[in-house]
């Protein structure tokens, strides 16, 4: 299976592991992640103002690239995923926005055909659940994560707004827990798993970010977890920066480990 892959800026810098292990795991699962020739940063957060057009252009360009190859657009970073999926949704549901966006695109050199939301946007987790299938992953597990108590941390970006993201139950999700089970680990369910880590407020009000992050890592620890896994570099940063007692790793790293392809890819 070949899919268009949008890594995002952080995966090329501070979150190289998230990217590297995603490639390794996908290779093992028979999925080829192909980047567009060029891509730009998604902007990190979706802008909710209806008149924000230009800031969403990078997302639309990536969507068009996938559309033209007739492939789904896959992301691993929660933030990129959220921004691109919401942009795609806005194109589909807000005619005025779609019109203005296409006007912008028409001005570009080698202007693409107008885009109306045709591309299917998938997070790698969704690709695994819906396209590859958990049963297929289970067959490929080489080193089950036996005995590991793992707390899945969703944060806000993967699940909300649920009407648009359509990934899982926003209040009682199970996609990562199901994956942990498939990989042989023991998921730890704790109530803070869909709470916000504080996100970008870390720059504005470090205390507030600390409070948020600690409430999450403390809740995971109190429920007996050995480690926390996430798909978001900012969540990971906030949790670690604010002194999480538990290790925080990317879900792709665990996936690669269980599939037996981690060591080959350690240290690039």
């Amino acid at each position, binding site marked *: 299976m070949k899919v268009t892959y949008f890594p995002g800026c952080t995966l090329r810098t501070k979150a190289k592991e998230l990217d590297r292990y995603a490639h390794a795991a996908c290779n093992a699962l028979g999925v080829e992640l192909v980047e567009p020739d060029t891509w730009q940063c998604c902007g990190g957060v979706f802008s909710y103002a209806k008149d924000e057009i230009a800031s969403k252009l990078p997302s639309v360009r990536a969507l068009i690239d996938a559309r033209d190859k007739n492939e789904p657009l896959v992301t691993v970073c929660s933030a990129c995923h959220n921004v691109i999926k919401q942009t795609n949704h806005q194109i589909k549901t807000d005619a005025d926005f779609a019109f203005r966006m296409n006007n912008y695109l028409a001005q570009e050199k080698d202007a693409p055909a107008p885009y109306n939301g045709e591309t299917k946007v998938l997070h790698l987790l969704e690709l695994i659940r819906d396209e590859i299938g958990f049963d297929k992953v289970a067959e490929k597990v080489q080193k089950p994560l036996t005995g590991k108590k793992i707390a899945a941390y969703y944060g806000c970006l993967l699940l909300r707004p649920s*009407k648009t993201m359509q990934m899982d*139950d926003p*209040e*009682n999700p199970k996609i990562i827990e199901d994956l942990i089970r498939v990989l042989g680990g023991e998921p730890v*369910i704790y*109530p*803070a798993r869909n709470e916000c880590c504080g996100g970008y407020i870390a720059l504005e009000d470090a205390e507030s970010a600390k409070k948020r992050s600690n409430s999450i890592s403390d*809740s995971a620890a*109190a429920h007996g977890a050995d480690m926390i896994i996430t798909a978001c570099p900012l969540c990971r940063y906030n949790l670690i920066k604010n002194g999480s007692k538990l290790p925080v790793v990317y879900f792709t790293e665990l996936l690669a480990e269980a599939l037996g392809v981690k060591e080959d890819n350690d240290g690039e």
Partner: protein
Amino acid sequence: MQRIGVFVCHCGTNIAGTVDVVAVAEALKNEPGVVHSAEYQYMCSQAGQDLIKAAIKEHNLSGIVVCSCSPRMHEATFRKTAAAAGLNPYMVEIANIREQCSWIHKDMASGTEKAIILGKAAIAKVNLNTPLTPGESPVTKRALVIGGGIAGIQTALDIADAGFPVDIVETKPTIGGKMAQLDKTFPTLDCAACILTPKMVDVAQNEKIRIFSYSEVVDVRGFVGNFDVTIKKRARYVKEDICTGCGLCTEKCPQKKVPNEFNLGMDNRRAIYIPFAQAVPKVATIDADYCTMLKTGKCGVCAKVCTAGAIDYEAKDEFIEEKYGAVVVATGFNPISMDKFDEFAYNQSKDVITSLEFERLTNAAGPTAGKLLRPSDGEHPHTIVFVQCVGSRCEACAEKGKEYCSKICCMYTAKHAMLTRDKYPDTDVYVFYIDVRTPGKAFDEFYRRAVEEYGVHYIKGMVGKVSPEGNKLKVQASDLIAGKQLHIDADLVVLAAAIEPDKSARGLATMLTASMDTNDFFTEAHPKLRPVESPTAGVFLSGTCQGPKDIPETVSQAGAAASKVIGLLCKDKLTGNPCVAQSDEMMCNGCSSCERVCPYGAITYSDKEFRMPDRTTKIRRVASVNPAVCQGCGACTVACPSGAMDLNGFKNNQIMAEVDAICKM
């Protein structure tokens, strides 16, 4: 050619104030067919009616036009007047020159002009009217009540009391419904079982009432007065007439791990069971999904212990066909699923429960024998949080809950809170509310007592999230009066889940061709003036299938539905409405369009033999209308592509004549 009389009413100044009635009478005098034209101050008065009768006789009129108020107001009056003078009542047409003319126009000239146009249109129609005679149909003097909760029970008892036989069809093994699961009832706090079970016994002992329990209606045909209904009696593997209800089998059955639906799954029952001690009929039922004998052929313990020999593993579903004159729907409600509201952690903690579960936890016959204990660890909860409006009053497009107010939650929550504080004064009880709605007799007083005498903490605000941490439920909520975000460590959280119609209602509505609203509540014929009748003749509504209701309201509606049924069953013959659709078989092309659009199921197709012009015969599939079922809505006449379908009293040529008369101006 008709001989038409025109009668223009002043309605005091209601019409005459804006319409020059004399000019109208004068202008209409020369219309085709008109032989007499008059005006009078109050045409509906005795004197006015006498004037019409005299004119009919004097001028030998074959049709009349009354220019007056809306036909909704006095069409029936003037039809009777005409009939009294020997004229067919369907030769009367009303031109509405009040609601649709004088009341909406300010100036005399335009009002008068419009009144003349409306009069001309009515005259054009009468010219094409033909006398119509309503048909008659017999009435089967037996009623069917679908649903055996308090609504169905009350309706059945009242109908039986008037001397008519009634059958109750209940899907569960016992009648009693939701009320049988309740502990106490607001606002007087009588025990639900104490007031319900005597009624259940009355039903069982009433010679006029038959109970089909563990049964469902699978087919309905026919029409008002003449319904043909098929009832499926599911195999319960116990002979009802032999079982004594001793309950020995339910104690000996080795399959002990069946979730007990009567206690909402909070404990287990056996595979053979009697739902509760006062069940009616008090007969055991084998749950085929769990019975080892039925699944593997190995066990048979119940048959061995049954001294009466009532067990029958070979039993099959039975189908019973019966005729009824009237059908009452009393299918009731269920709390909605809490799956889409897991911010309250219902699926994440056993100690987050619904209000109906709370009823079972406080009921002496419930899983804890009436002691309020946490489902997770059996400990006594000290801090209890009640959350109101869970899934009620949700925006429609939010697709999570229901847009309506479920109506009963404010009161039962006040009851729960009060009873908890009464029985366990050491508990802290919080109720989070958006509004407290208590419009009922002695309702607000009841709620105030919960606050003032029992010290229940009512907090204006909503709970945002419930987090199970350790053995506590961390409740994060807002207190809008104090302007604070509250954090409460609760032991038990109780959700007032919205209620919705029972899922069986939708299929039943289709069978009955009874209409429903977007929430699957049955629609009443008129929201104020005909609240217990469905728009489908002969189908009546009782209880929460029509909308959220508490017990007193349900019982009153049940009685009202019964009185309507009795009124129907008292008649020997039903007079139909002659303004019904009629198919011209020669023109019908057998396409079924009319059958598909008919909301009442009045149209059927059959193969008929026709003699062709060349003396051969040909079999063609053609539509026919059952005039007793047709309500004269006219949908079929619009759908029919070949023009075969027409509506008596409103035939296409009559309507077109009216339009022509208006357009000629």
